[in-house]
Each structure stands twice: as structure tokens, then as C-alpha cells.
């Protein structure tokens, strides 16, 4: 499908689904090196996003409108570290997508803005065992894919693949940002929950595009 507002809405719904499906897994990852709430927080947040979108009187007409609803709803319902971080990511992403349909470059711009949002708030760089370790390779892969002329769908796939690899790559890292950093060396050997959820959300973006519009 084309990456228009229908795609954006579908991305949100698919996000809510994957977060619900992986709620327990994300809680468990966070329990290992954090405080065990990441899956619950995102689940609460995306449930709120969906019901907020469902409740809108006039349906959004642009991708950016949808992402802005996601941003403000996550900020006001998720809490913890992930709420402001994802909230700012979606807010920045919303700003660069004042278009009715996204091409490959726009997808890259969206992802870049998201990463910038996370970094602006969280001040983390790669290798600190945070969601940046999923977003950063995702952006790089998307840039490469767009540069070699891939379709928007392919760009999203490249981003998701890279984010998934990035999440896996957090396993051996010693955290130096976020709650896991309190564990010092003991944080090694566990996957960062925020990196894992980022990979899920980026995969959801690709799936929403691949699936075509739902009934």
C-alpha cells in the first residue's frame, strides 16, 4: 500500500497488537535488568492511542496528524522513561511528515526525526544499551536502502531488520544509560527492553505497509 494516512493508522493498530502480544515478554526483559514495567507501560499507552484515534470526531487526513496523536497520548499515559522518549520520537517524526503520502526519502526523514527525538531527550549514544541501539542502525539501514533506490516498503523492511539486529546486539552490552546502568556489569547478558520494543514498532510499520488496507 502507499504510505498514507491509512498506513499510519494501520501502523498504530499493528503496534498496539504487537505490544499486546509481547507485553509479557517486554515485562520479563525489563524485570531482568530494570523494574519490570516496560511491557505494561507500552500496553497501557498504545491501548490509549487506539481508543483516542477511535474517538476522534474527524478522522485524521495526514500521517503527521496520526503521529502527533500517538506522541501526545504516549507522553500522557506511558510515564517512566519510555513515555517521554517515544513521545518525543513520534512528535519529531510527526513534524517532518506534513505530506499525504511518503516516498522513500520521507520514510528516512521520519526515522531520522524519531531517532533525533530519542537522543534529544535521553542523551544516549549507541552502545549504551538503550533503544538508541535499535533506532540508530535502523536509520542507517533506511538511509542506505533509500540511497540505492529501494521502495518505501523496502526501506521500512531494511529499518526493521536492522532494528531487530540492533536489539539482539544489546545483549552483551553493559548499560550506561537508563535503569539497567545501575546494575553495572550485571546488565550484560540481557536484551534491552526498549531496544526490543523499538524493533517491534518498526517491524509493525513495515507489516502495516506490506499487508495492504484491512477490511
Amino acid at each position, binding site marked *: 500500500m502507499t504510505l498514507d494516512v491509512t498506513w499510519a493508522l494501520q501502523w498504530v493498530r499493528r503496534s498496539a497488537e504487537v505490544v499486546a502480544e509481547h507485553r509479557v515478554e517486554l515485562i520479563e526483559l525489563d*524485570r531482568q535488568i530494570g523494574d519490570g514495567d516496560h511491557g505494561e507501560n507500552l500496553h497501557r499507552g498504545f491501548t490509549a492511542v487506539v481508543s483516542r484515534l477511535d474517538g476522534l470526531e474527524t478522522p485524521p487526513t495526514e500521517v503527521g496528524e496520526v503521529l502527533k496523536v500517538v506522541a501526545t497520548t504516549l507522553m500522557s499515559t506511558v510515564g517512566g522513561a519510555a513515555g517521554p522518549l517515544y513521545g518525543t520520537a513520534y512528535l519529531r517524526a510527526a513534524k517532518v511528515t506534513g505530506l499525504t503520502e511518503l516516498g522513500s526519502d520521507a520514510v528516512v526523514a521520519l526515522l531520522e526525526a524519531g531517532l533525533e527525538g530519542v537522543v534529544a531527550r535521553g542523551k544516549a549514544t549507541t552502545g549504551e544499551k538503550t533503544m538508541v541501539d535499535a533506532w540508530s542502525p535502523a536509520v542507517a539501514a533506511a538511509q542506505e536502502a533509500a540511497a540505492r533506490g529501494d521502495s518505501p516498503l523496502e526501506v521500512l523492511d531494511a529499518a526493521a531488520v536492522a532494528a531487530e539486529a540492533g536489539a539482539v546486539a544489546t545483549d552483551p552490552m553493559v548499560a550506561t544509560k537508563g535503569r539497567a546502568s545501575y546494575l553495572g556489569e550485571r546488565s550484560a547478558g540481557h536484551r534491552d527492553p526498549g531496544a526490543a520494543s523499538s524493533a517491534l514498532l518498526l517491524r509493525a510499520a513495515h507489516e502495516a505497509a506490506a499487508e495492504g488496507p484491512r477490511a
Partner: protein
Amino acid sequence: MKKLINDPARVVDESVEGFGLAHADLVTVRTDPLYVVRAGAPIQGKVGLVSGGGSGHEPLHAGYVGLGMLDAAVPGAMFTSPTPDSIAPATLAVDGGRGVLHIVKNYTGDVLNFETAAELADAEGVEVRTVLVNDDVAVEDSLYTAGRRGVAGTLAVEKIAGAAAERGDDLAGVAAVAERVAANVRSMGVALSACTVPHAGTPSFDLTEDEIEIGIGIHGEPGRRRVPMAPADEITEQLTTPVMDDLGLGGGEQVLLLVNGMGGTPASELYVVYRRARQLLEARGVTVARSLVGNYVTSLEMQGASVTVLRLDAETTSLWDAPVRTAALRW
């Protein structure tokens, strides 16, 4: 998991509702968004004090709302920082015209959410200052981490800054006192058992019958290291020595000693810890001028304790002694 709750998703709301009913003489509970304000708020002409954070640390923070301490507490979900859209309204609700101090425990989530709330309040014309509490010495290389966590030392910051606000100090003055307390308070904790967050349903970590976690925070996170179970005196040394060292405490100094229960520890055991911590302080020539022993900053039903030491000066001592009337602390 066995808990006296109805629905994990409703426990914070129901609990805070009960809290408001039980302490209607001291506080008012506002809902949508949820926060707790001192009865009669805002107090005109007084700097407002707002704190908040994830639930599960009760009596922190709502238990400290009242005369001489906080003006508002903002409870988040269990172990999850509240969001700006409850922190900001709470901030506006307690502004008595002289600005508001945010007392924030140093966690990424709390810092970010309070940051946004402060911006929102500022946009409404309310001046906000923020003090970060980061007293946990268990987080050693704070340059390479999110920084030290805020744990039981938060109580001391809230009490003493609250007394300064109550006597009429301006926002800069209250913030300065709060910073001074934050700079002079250190803590370290131990867990004998984990705790179970209602929505998770499984304990936050798994310990065998002869292991303990040293250097834990207050969110059921594992600590810095797992060590074999030991007598209380030895454990207390492992907590108190790093605290004293980090503070650089020397002979002749006066301190407040807080032995804090994590929620599931019998009071009798806390006094066994207090006894040893006091011996260790006195062995350094430090005078324990003020003491507090009990469940003040908890991790649900976790078994364990933390030792907090605050270096006192004449002013902070008298502010500590100043009257306080809250659900969990009063004199």
C-alpha cells in the same frame, strides 16, 4: 502472587482513594488526572512543594503531604513515573504565588516527565525550580550511568525543604536548602527478598534461601552484587561503611540516621540494623543527633532495609525538628 488488591490496573486509584478518605483532615485527592494536595491548597504566599514518582514506595510521597512538608504528591503507576499531564496540574494547584519546587528522584523517567511538566507550568506563568535527589551510593561510577538513584534520602529533602517553605523562604531559598540536604545525604540498601509488581505477577528477581542483594534501589531492581546471607551486623556494615565513606564523615560531625524498611521487614529487625549502624557511626566519632526507623520509602513488600545518613548543620537540624503534620510523619 497474593495481594490485597482487586485489579492490578486499579490498585493505585483505589489505594489513593482510600488514602484520601482516611486522611481527609490532611489531604484532598483529585482525580483525572490523579494527584494528592494538602488540604486547603494552594497556601497563598508559600512556596509550593511537589514530588511524585512511581507508586509502590508508600508512604512516599502522598504520606508526606501536609503542613511542613509537601503540598502535592503525584503518584504514577506502580514503579512508573507519572506523566506531565498529572504533574503539571498538581504544580498549578499548589502555586501560592511564590513558585513551586519539584523534588525529583533521579531516574531517567522521573527527570524527563517532571522536565516537561515544569515547561508546561512555566507556560502557565508558574515559576518552577527542580531539585534532584540522588543519594544512593550503590551506583558507584555515576559518570558512566544515569547517575545515582534517589532513594530514602528523598524523605529528608522533602521534610527539610518543606519546613523551609513553611517558614516563608522564597523559591530560591527553599531550593537552596533542598540542594544542601541532597548534597549531604547518602543511602545504601539490601534486599533479602524481591517484590512483586501487581501487573507483572512474578517477583522482580529470584534469590535462593542463602543469598541477598546488596546495593538495591527501590524498584525491585537487582542490586550491584549478590552475596551470601550474613548476620545483620555484617550486612549493616556493608551498607553503612560506603555511606560514611562517600559522605567523608569525620569525628565531631552530627548526623541524622534513618534506617528504612523496604516494606516487608519486621520493625524488630530494623532496630537491630539501627543499633549496628549507630555503633559504626559512633566509632568514627560521629554523633547521631536525630533518628528515624521504619518503613518510609518502600518497595512494595520487599524484605530488606536501607541505611541513610544525612550530615546535619544547625539550620537543617532545626528545620528537621520543625512541626510536620502528614499521614506518615508528624511531630
